[in-house]
Structure formats: C-alpha cells, structure tokens
C-alpha cells in the first residue's frame, strides 16, 4: 500500500511511495487500453477545438488518466460517478460511448445531452454518470446525496466523487465531509491534486497542502496516492471501496497527479515552467509506465502499436461522427426544462 508522505517537493509528482502491488498482465493491458482511449480522445478533442468544432470551454484530462482508470477497476454496476467540468476521461472510463461524448462536445443532437449540455455538463443515467458540473465545489454535496441514496436503499453501492485541489478549499466540501462521516455515507472523495487551479498553485491557495488530511477534523481517513501510477491508484481505490461497501463510511483519496495541457484551451501557462511539465511527462507518464511493464513482460512493440492503432481508429470514427452529426432540432430549445 502506498505510504503517506507529507512534504511537497519541487518535482511536481516526485513523491516517494513504497512499490504498489503489481497488476496482472491482463489488468495492465486493460488499463493501457483505457488510458490510451482517454488520451487519444482528448488529443482529438483539442484538435477539433482548434478547428472550431468545439466552442466555449474545453478542459482536457491528459496526464491524469491513471486516476479514473485505476479507480474504475473497483467499480461495479450501480455505483455512481460524479465529477467536475474536466470530465471527458471519467465518462469514457464509466463506459460511455466516445461517439456520444464527442458529439456533445460539438453540440450535436447525438450527444449525451442532445447537444444542450456541452463539454462541462454531460450525464448518462444508464452508466450512473451524474455529470459534468461547471461550478467548482458544487458537485461534492451532490455526490454525497448519491451516496445517501445507496445507504437509504440498503444496497452496497458507492459513489465516486471527484474534484480538484482548488475545489478542495470550497466551504461546501467541509459541510459535506461532516455529514458524510456523521451519517456514514458510502462515498470515496477523490481529490485530483494536479497542483494547479487555473493559474494558482496549491501552495498559493492552501494553508495546508496535504489534502488527504482534510477530513481529519471529521475523522474521515485519507491517504495520498501516486495518481500517475495506475497500480497505486487501483490498490488504494480497492481498499477504500471495499471499506465503503462494508459500511465503514467515507474515505479521502488524494491523487497526486498533473495536467499536461493548459487549464482550458487557451491558457498562456505562465504560472509554470516548460521544464516542470516536461519532467512529469518524461518521468511519470501513466501510459509510458504501463507500456514499459508490458514490454518487459514480453509484449512486442508491434503488438502495442496495434492497440494504439485500433484505439485511434475508434477515436477518429467518433470525431468524424461528431463533425458530421446534425445539430439539435430547433424545437429542442424549449424541451427538457421541467419533468413530467
């Protein structure tokens, strides 16, 4: 199990953990596929944004793929996922169709929200994905409400509630922590600490920077996890999820991770150096780590390339679909405001 380390160092993710247990080769391979799908999807989304097919804000998940992929390994049918606007990876990992996600990004009727929601506001009732939320912090109590429904119904499902290091300072997060522990809600608070909230580093916004300790005054246990290593994420996620399913209440997983791209699409990125970004990419890339293990385990470079090739044709097909799908009918403007 990852052991906690307290002090932050200059290298954004240079935390020292004891080696996490290995994944089986099959699990590694599955994780590689999932992470590659997310990365290729995001690269394509960035490209479509540059071509004008996607408007408004578009927050890419590149660099953070191991977090959601490692946690989804412990998810089961009926569990819920809720996150912020940096949501494309979570949707793909939750099993949503890249065509439907990409078509929402281009604002087309075939998108998951019929083109009405956009990049930041997408949902799938079928896959238990509850958004896609644009207001920093606001999705955290909503996630606790999803967990509450599991407790109320007496099932053993859990809610995976993702939010950022910046969001972790919002007041409603602490109101939620208190009630989650008070009522023993089956929720995993996943703080994706990518070190920055827009242009503000965690050191400049937070009086204490070990976010896994943020539940301490409510007696919610937590730990920091190397969020660039899918093995560490899986191991930490599994024990937290098992405990929550067994009725032991909430848990905080602080995932130390990093976003390679800007906050949204046009971010001058003057708040960090190119060297910092490069170092993380070179030394900690979540996909490169798995790839290396698979090569050592006997897979060939050609086999790995073929996987990438297959994923890219899937993503290219999704992009083509999303570029050519029709916009919503204009009568859609007035529908879906009220239920019933």
């Amino acid at each position, binding site marked *: 199990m990852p052991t906690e380390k307290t002090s932050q160092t200059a290298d954004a993710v240079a935390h020292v953990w004891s080696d996490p247990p290995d994944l089986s080769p099959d699990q590694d391979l599955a994780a590689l596929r999932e992470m590659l799908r997310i990365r290729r999807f995001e690269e394509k989304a960035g490209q479509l944004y540059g071509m*004008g097919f996607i408007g408004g804000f578009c927050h890419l998940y590149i660099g953070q793929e191991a977090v959601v992929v490692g946690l989804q390994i412990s998810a089961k049918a009926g569990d819920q996922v809720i996150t912020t606007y940096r949501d494309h990876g979570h949707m793909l990992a939750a099993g949503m169709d890249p065509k439907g996600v990409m078509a929402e990004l281009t604002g087309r009727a075939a998108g998951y929200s019929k083109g*009405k929601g956009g990049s930041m506001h997408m949902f799938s009732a079928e896959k238990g994905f509850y958004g896609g939320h*644009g207001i920093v912090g606001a999705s955290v109590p909503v996630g606790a409400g999803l967990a509450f429904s599991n407790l109320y119904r007496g099932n053993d499902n859990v809610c995976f509630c993702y939010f950022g290091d910046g969001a972790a300072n919002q007041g409603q997060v602490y109101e939620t922590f208190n009630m989650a522990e008070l009522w023993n809600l089956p929720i995993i608070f996943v703080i994706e600490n990518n070190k920055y909230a*827009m242009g*503000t580093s965690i050191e400049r916004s937070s009086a204490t920077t070990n976010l896994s300790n943020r539940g301490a005054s409510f007696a919610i246990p937590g730990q920091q996890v190397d969020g660039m290593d899918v093995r560490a994420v899986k191991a930490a996620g599994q024990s937290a999820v098992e405990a929550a399913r067994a009725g032991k209440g909430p848990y905080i997983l602080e995932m130390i991770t990093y976003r*390679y791209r800007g906050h949204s699409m*046009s971010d001058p990125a003057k708040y960090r150096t190119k060297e910092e970004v490069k170092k993380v990419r070179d030394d900690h890339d979540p996909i490169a780590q798995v790839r290396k293990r698979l090569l050592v385990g006997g897979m060939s470079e050609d086999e790995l390339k073929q996987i990438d090739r297959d994923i890219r044709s899937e993503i290219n097909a999704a992009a083509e679909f999303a570029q050519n799908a029709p916009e919503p009918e204009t009568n859609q403007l007035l529908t879906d405001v009220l239920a019933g």
Partner: protein
Amino acid sequence: MPSEILMPALSPTMEEGKLAKWLVKEGDAVAPGDIIAEIETDKATMDVEAVDEGTITKLLVAEGSANIAVNTPIALIAGDDLAATPNAVLPDPEARQEPKAKPGPAVKQADEMPSEKPHPAIGLSSGDALGSINTDLSGVEVIETTMREALRDAMAQEMRRDADVFLMGEEVAQYQGAYKVSQGLLEEFGDRRVIDTPITEQGFAGIGVGAALAGLKPIVEFMTWNFAMQAIDQIINSAAKTRYMSGGQMHAPIVFRGPNGAASRVGAQHSQCYSAWYAHVPGLKVVAPSTPADAKGLLKSAIRDPNPVVFLENELLYGIAGPVPQVDEWLVPIGKARIARAGSDVTIVSFLRGMTYALEAADRLAEDGIASEVIDLRTLRPLDLETILTSVSKTNRLVVVEEAWPVCSVGSEICAQVSMQAFDDLDAPPRKVSGVDVPMPYAANLEKLALPSADDVVAAAKAVLYL
C-alpha cells in the same frame, strides 16, 4: 499519403498567429503528444502537439512567420497507415465559430477580442446632471480605450487616490485577471492591495464585507457572476442589510464586480444574467454599463459610494473600444440613465449587452424612417424612471431589451412602472425582448435562438408602432 497539420486556434476568437518556433525538422518521426511547434499571439505562447504518429515530410511555413490564418496547413505528416483523416478535413463553415459574436475561453487577450463596432460617442442627455463635473465632451480630449482597460484604469485611479481601496478575487493578481481586467495592478500596488484568493467565493465575499464594515473599501472580483451564487448570502444578508439592521450605525462600502450574462458556448451554468436578482434587493446599488466611458466613470463612482454596489460587466464587451474622456475626475453618477440615441417614434430601453441589439436595431429602423430613442439604463437600481417616462411621453411607445430571462426581469419592472405611471401616454402595450425562458443551451444553433437579437428588437418596435 501525407496529411496536413493545420494552424490551430487557441481560442474561438483567434484568427491568426505567428509560428514562433519549429521543434521538429523535416524527416523527424513524431508521436501523438509530441510538441512540434510553438505558436504565438500577442500575449500568449502555446505549444502545438502532434495528434498523429508519423514522419514530418515537409514544413510548409517558415519559423518566425507571422499572421498565419487559423486552419492554414503548416506541415505535412506521412502517417504510418493510421494517420488520421479528420486532421485534413476542413471544418464545416457553419460549425466554425464566428469570431464576432463568439468569445473564447477564460484567457483572452484584448487583441483577440471581437472587434465590434465602437459604440457611438457618449451622447450625454440633458438629464445627465453631473453637477460640477464636466459633462460636455466637445473640446474634451478623449482616448479610444477598451472596456477592459477602462475598468482597470478606474480601479488604478481610485487605488492611487485612496489607500483603503483594495482588490481581491480569484486570479486577479499574478494571472492579471481571468479576463485580463486587472492587468498591471499587482505590479503597481503590490500583493497587500491586489490579492489572489482561493476558490472560496462565500468566504472571500464575506471577508470583503467584514473589511468594509471596518471602514476599508474592497473591490471584490468574481471571476464571473455565476460563481457569486456561492456568495449571494453574503452580498444580500451581510452587505445589503447591515446598514438597516444596525439602525444606520454601520455600512459596507464595497464593490462586487465581474462579468455577467451570456458568454459564448459555455453552457447553462456559466451563462446567466443576474440583473433582476440584485436589482430586487434594497440596500444595494446595481450598475451595468455598456460603454468604456460609462464603465470607467461608473466604477469610480461605485468605489467612492458608501453603499454596497453590484457592478455587472459582460465578457463579450471587454474588447470593445470607445472614447473615454481624459479629464481628471471622470465620474458618471449612479442612478442616471443615458440617452444613447435621440428619437421621437419609439423608446427602446436596454442595458449592458442588450444595448448592442438595441443600437443595431435603431440603425435598421432608421433605414425605414423610424426614429428610435435608445436609453441606456447604466444603473438598474436605483432605476432612472424619470428619463424613461420623459421619453415615453414623447414617443408613446416602449420596447425593453435585455438578455435575462423574461419572468420577473428588469424589463418586467420597467413595463409595470410605465404602465402604472404613464398609462395614458402609451399608444400600444409595451413589449419586452428578453432571453428565452430556458437554461442556456450549448449547441450553437440553440444558443443563438436562446438569446435576443437585433431582429427581435426591430420586430418589437414595429409591433408597438403597429407596422
């Protein structure tokens, strides 16, 4: 078959940029995610990453070339067999953002802003009683200034004048403002007076109120007013009501400011007009300027005002330029509307971005021989009903234009007041042109339909004229 790598846009409003540097040369193999070039706009530099795997066969644009239009092919890449086709597909022109009306993501530079037609010079009405302040613009030196700069200049001048004024908000200091409104303020005033906050709106709005009750004069910037919903309790319960609750003993001289209303394609949670929400509240003043001159003069007045002032800006107006008088004390009084265009046939009342539609409609109505009187409210609370009633007594027709939802809106209030106070002056029932009564959709076609347009204003004006 080689495919083309195209010049990307860094924001929907970017039309061209400079290829600052190639990080690959012809013959290099690249993989997805590799940085192949750096491109530059005036203020930002950005990396271009390869999306496909393959070999760069040709660099089509020389390093250092400027003014390269978005979507120009900049290099050729010979894929292995998986080179992506969509890379070479040119965007469907319908889907391409029209730079004019479409703003970009959080970080935008003045040079990338839509170059909308500057608003007409501030036609100060006779009702504009500015007291001792010089209101006659003839002979006064004016400088073309963007809304963004005008707001910054107002804050800087007031901070120079009064050491108790300080600015606080998310990304206002080191980042120079999410929309670059506070550019240069950290350098001039230091981090004691230009303060980056965590993302904790309720907390820092409340801290602002407390500091104001203790006599300081905070300017609290909300990255957008959408996020001030986290803080609305502090604005209303702590800032607006304290003077009354304390029997006049204490009050909060604080300005809450930031962009309000629809931006472009940012969806339901980021596109909402709060005019009616705050105009409803006794104890607040609410200001909503549409020109750089008004923005500067009103922000200076707001900072000096002893009351809490809600100052509503609009992201899509930050880049518009207009003449701003270079007089020492350019103060525009809170509570006074402005006649933006005089006319006798129909009164069109609007504010903030609604003025864009109102003025465009007035131009088009003029082509049909209809003379509109366009009133820019500038302040929503207290409302300058006198200017509206005077105009309606002349035109006998009223159209109100706003981007907000129609139910219980500022437009509703104006129609109600005019109907109650000047029923006999009206030759037709007043008309409202508002946003459609739905959350803002993301899809380009639906978003357009959800917002008012100059066409809607023209139609409403003709309707009240029975044309």
